């Protein structure tokens, strides 16, 4: 794996910050609903039909726990979703780095490393799913 730092061209889109602003707005909207106690508990169709949780089961509870600043509980509700959130936050920080430094960093992976990453994510996905089923989330 190699990291290559290059300068940003003027007017180049800062995608992490665009996603940050959109996600931030959505979170604010959900928080308004949360304050007004209007977040409905929508049941998972997959779980109802099969009896097993789907890979994203617990997402609403992760959000509820985060609004109550209960980080441990949020992690236990759905570890992979929580980790995805952490990766997203790191990506947003990278967006701020691009904004203030005027540089961007390219991650260059070899074919083998990309394959390893893809397999790693898939394995994590299934381990998380097994955990959700075992923990009865």
């Amino acid at each position: 794996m190699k990291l290559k730092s290059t300068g940003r061209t003027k007017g180049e889109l800062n995608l992490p910050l665009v996603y940050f602003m959109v996600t931030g707005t959505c979170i604010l909207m959900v928080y308004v609903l949360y304050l007004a106690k209007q977040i409905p508990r929508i049941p998972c169709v997959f779980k109802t039909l099969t009896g097993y949780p789907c890979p994203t089961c617990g997402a609403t509870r992760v959000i509820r726990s985060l609004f109550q600043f209960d980080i441990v509980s949020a992690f236990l509700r759905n570890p992979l979703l929580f980790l995805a959130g952490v990766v997203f936050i790191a990506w947003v920080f990278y967006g701020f780095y691009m904004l203030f430094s005027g540089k961007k960093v390219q991650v260059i992976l070899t074919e083998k490393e990309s394959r390893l990453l893809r397999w790693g994510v898939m394995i994590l996905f299934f381990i998380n799913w097994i955990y959700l089923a075992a923990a009865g989330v």
Partner: protein
Amino acid sequence: MNQDDYSEQLPSPPEETGSIPEPPKLIVPFEDPTKEFFTGLFETMKLVLFEPTRFFRDYKLDGSIGRPLLFAVMIGWTAATVSAMWGTVVNKSILSYLQERMPDLEGVDWERLASGGSSMDFAFTLILAPIFIVFGLFIIAGVYHLFLMIAKGANKNFETTFNVVAYGMVTRLAEFIPFCGSLIAWIYGLVLAIIGLAGAHKTDSGKAAFAVLAPVLLCCFCILMIFMMIGATGFMAVLNKSLR
């Protein structure tokens, strides 16, 4: 003849601004008369969905609004039909199944959820969707352009903003996914609108984000105020009762 007379006749030298001349804009495949109708449609859909930055930056979007409007109506109508179909057939049957299994589930208004998918609604959607799409496009484009002007980011005309909104309708295709399709369409639609306004108006993403997200935040603020007012009214009523 002195030096000044010569200089008047000679063409003025190009200004040394240091900027590279802008390359000519490409024609949007759907607006290209040399392309077949459906080839152009699918190429445009693919470009907007998978290469939005390049599409909104490099393609000509400040022309007429006729073809983009047709594009938006076609996509929007298809999406509305699919969404209504999910509401009528799939969601309703799943919801009735869920209601059977979990009748006492806390916080779910089954009647309200199930009421969204009658056959009458489906027929109304088919007839009225194009009209609502056209009105909606003009209203959304107008709001975005107004906020872009407030942020001093409107470097192109209204047609550019309109075309960004119209081609951004392609995200409505996520309605094909039942249950969460509308949410995905809405979130990706916001992202595409920001990318589109920044690219087409040649403005920075902060101003584009302001134009797209400020109206949403304003709505959010209004909803919060309404809830606070309702809460305050309830509190006052309780206070009045206790004082008596």
